């Protein structure tokens, strides 16, 4: 039993930051043994995430001050429900992407530099994500956001073509503007209240013009970085042009980092403010994102751009949370958004990995000519179909129960007009997915294509099975997500008259 006690005592959420950083540095220093180091690092991180989940269920949310310096002076790291669920999702999806990348970037392939630089950059993104979910300090969040952005930009440009490099540069400049605007907000808060710690600020912050300006600046910066509707122009080219595992990383994991920061600010730091106007603005932008993103996805000719625009639409769902978070529906909405992020991460990553395999076997990803070029499409079609079940939000996937809770919150707070938006979003998603899936059933002569390696076919299948069964097994993740959450109340709200 000593081992179990030792394992439970270890601060796993801190190890989950140092591990990928060490991995990134060592893969940079030893380029020839990049794949083995990268893979065993992914394995260790996955194990660490599992241990941190067990630790959370055993002892509740943990906090730790870096270097034993308490809140106002030092940096506080906190592993609450939201952080641990996101750590576990990033670890799970990241591990699958790492397995896929072993096949996609063969170390001895014709372009060794792509494999050599994929692993350090990917491990830096992983470290940035883990550090961001765990941090409870505004300036520390700024630095983690920068690590994630810079590494994601370099990964996007890994493809090497002019469109990819152009998209990466536009991504970098937009994110830089977003971060500096966010930093301006942090500066105002520090000037006014002398601390950047989340929990301290939520106690001491009062609502006055300075803090409202800071809130506005920080929210605008984070909107730009999480690509909400009017500020999403940089996302589709970046996600569409990048290599498949990179697109999966960007769409499934990186997009959620800026959003989680916004979630923490909204539910903790600025909880006491009256933000009805801002909430409805975010809700309106979210709804516009859902409709516009889905319509654009319907019109795309290439598969990866279609999936990228689908990401823009699904981000819209996340922003419906703010207007729906009423007094008694806060817990409902908090659970809905976490369930949605986990389901979307798994589903979207599986979709992009399948698109990558199709592009490698068929040589292109144009939807219209995909039927003929299919090759051994059995597993690919099944994986894409299962992943799209989550994206559309059909039962028994996690997406379904997330949308159920969103609808419940919308009806409980009387804002019924969000219901048609949520439902139309699902139907439009079904439309653009059917457009892609019909090539799987088209009965046309398939020319024989090189069979993609085993490691590229089966991991996405595991990922979308997780997304599919998440709905049925939602009890565990939801309970974990609610530990230490800054919300109270029932998950399912009934207006008992």
């Amino acid at each position, binding site marked *: 039993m000593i081992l179990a006690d030792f394992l439970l005592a270890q601060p796993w959420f801190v190890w989950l930051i140092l591990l990928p950083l060490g991995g990134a540095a060592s893969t940079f220093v030893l*380029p020839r043994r990049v794949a083995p180091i990268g893979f065993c690092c992914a394995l260790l991180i996955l194990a660490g995430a599992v241990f941190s989940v067990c630790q959370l269920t055993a002892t509740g949310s943990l906090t730790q001050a870096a270097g034993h310096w308490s809140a106002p002076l030092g940096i506080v790291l906190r592993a609450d429900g939201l952080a641990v669920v996101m750590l576990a999702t990033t670890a799970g999806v990241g591990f699958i992407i790492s397995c896929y990348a072993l096949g996609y970037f063969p170390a001895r392939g014709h372009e060794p530099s792509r494999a050599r630089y994929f692993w350090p950059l990917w491990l830096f993104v992983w470290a940035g994500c883990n550090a961001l979910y765990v941090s409870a300090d505004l300036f520390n969040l700024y630095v983690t956001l920068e690590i994630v952005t810079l590494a994601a930009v370099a990964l996007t440009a890994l493809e090497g073509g002019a469109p990819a490099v152009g998209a990466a540069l536009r991504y970098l400049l937009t994110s830089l503007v977003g971060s500096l605007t966010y930093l301006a907000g942090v500066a*105002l808060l520090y000037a006014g209240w002398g601390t950047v710690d989340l929990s301290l600020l939520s106690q001491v912050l009062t609502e*006055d013009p300075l803090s409202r300006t800071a809130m506005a600046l920080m929210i605008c910066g984070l909107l730009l970085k999480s690509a909400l509707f009017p500020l999403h122009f940089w996302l589709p080219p970046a996600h569409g042009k990048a290599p498949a595992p990179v697109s999966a990383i960007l769409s499934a994991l990186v997009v959620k980092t800026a959003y989680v920061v916004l979630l923490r600010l909204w539910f903790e730091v600025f909880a006491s403010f009256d933000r009805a106007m801002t909430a409805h603005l975010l809700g309106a932008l979210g709804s516009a994102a859902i409709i516009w993103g889905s319509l654009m996805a319907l019109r795309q000719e290439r598969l990866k751009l279609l999936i990228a625009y689908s990401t823009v639409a699904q981000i819209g769902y996340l922003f419906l949370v703010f207007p729906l978070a009423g007094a008694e529906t806060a817990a409902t909405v908090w659970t809905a958004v976490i369930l949605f992020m986990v389901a979307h991460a798994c589903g979207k990553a599986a979709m992009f990995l399948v698109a990558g395999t199709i592009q490698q076997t068929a040589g292109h990803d144009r939807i219209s000519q995909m039927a003929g070029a299919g090759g051994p499409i059995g597993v690919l079609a099944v994986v894409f179909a299962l992943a799209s079940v989550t994206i559309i939000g059909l039962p028994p996937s996690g997406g379904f129960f997330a949308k159920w809770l969103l609808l419940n919150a919308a009806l409980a707070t009387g804002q019924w007009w969000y219901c048609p938006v949520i439902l139309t979003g699902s139907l439009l998603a079904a439309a653009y997915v059917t457009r892609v899936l019909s090539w799987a059933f088209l009965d046309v002569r398939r020319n024989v294509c090189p069979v993609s390696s085993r490691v590229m076919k089966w991991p996405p299948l595991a990922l979308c099975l997780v997304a599919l069964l998440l709905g049925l097994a939602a009890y565990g993740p939801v309970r974990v997500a609610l530990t230490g959450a800054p919300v109270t109340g029932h998950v399912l709200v009934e207006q008992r008259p």
Partner: protein
Amino acid sequence: MTLLFGHLIDLLLAVSLTVLAWRLLATSDLFKATVLFIAFGLLMALAWVRLDAPDLALAEAVIGAGITGVLLLTALRHLDSGARVARMSGRSGRRSLRVLLPALGIMPALLVLLCLSSPHIRSTAGLTASVIERLDQIGTDHPVTAVLLDFRAYDTLLETAVLLLAVVAVWSLHPVRPIFSPEPISPAQRGLLRLLLPVLIMTSLYLLWRGSHAPGGAFQAGALLAAGLLLLLLSEQRLPGRWSGMFLRLLLAGGFMIFLLVAAGALVGTGTLLDYPGGGASWLLLSIEAALSLSIAALLATAVIGGRPSDRSTEFPPRRKDPAGEEG
């Protein structure tokens, strides 16, 4: 009297900063913009001195004006050849800038008013007091270095990760291009180099050592060392091929890895991140700073060179072929 004189200088500095920034972004000629930007960096260093932040003044001077300036000038050499693109849009740039002037003026004025009307401005004492009283528990006397390496050491760890990440990003894009001019350097430059290099190295060592009790520290020392390294590379000195392999990569990542190992060691030992044994003895902080400054120097220099070393045979960065064909 001196108070009035102080206010005058502040006002003058603030106005000139704004006007310089405006001119810098409005001109159509890129070279003029870059030179103005370097001047802007120096003025910013002055502003930091006025704001009683000597560390920032040093950093701004070396990094803001120095390193970024060299970076922009080398970029100009590549981007300027496409000068026609720059000129073509120059005209329209000026007109659109003037047209939207009013909109530009309203937003900052609104923000200034908002900040002024808040009672909270300057009401809090900030963390100066709590930093000063804890200085004795750690091995350094200078508050900024204390915050950088002990109170918020985790931020500094992530910051060095960002630096290493920048080099990895730059290297992942393209092999190194010959950037420095082929003309043989004039004897005056060679003499200046022989004089300047030792002074540069001495100052950066002094800055490094001084960081423990006065403004200075790893970043400023590293940046200064990088400036020296670039000066060396400007004057025909090249890093031999076999050095640009594993040795260079170890040098680049060394500082970060040592810092990471210290953090991991502290985590295993005491179970909390970056909790130095014995409250951070001065020798430990100084050794970390030394390693960091070496790595930062190498990182900044390679970021400016801007490309990954191709193979073992050629020097790094390669000598630029003279357009006329004979070896420079």
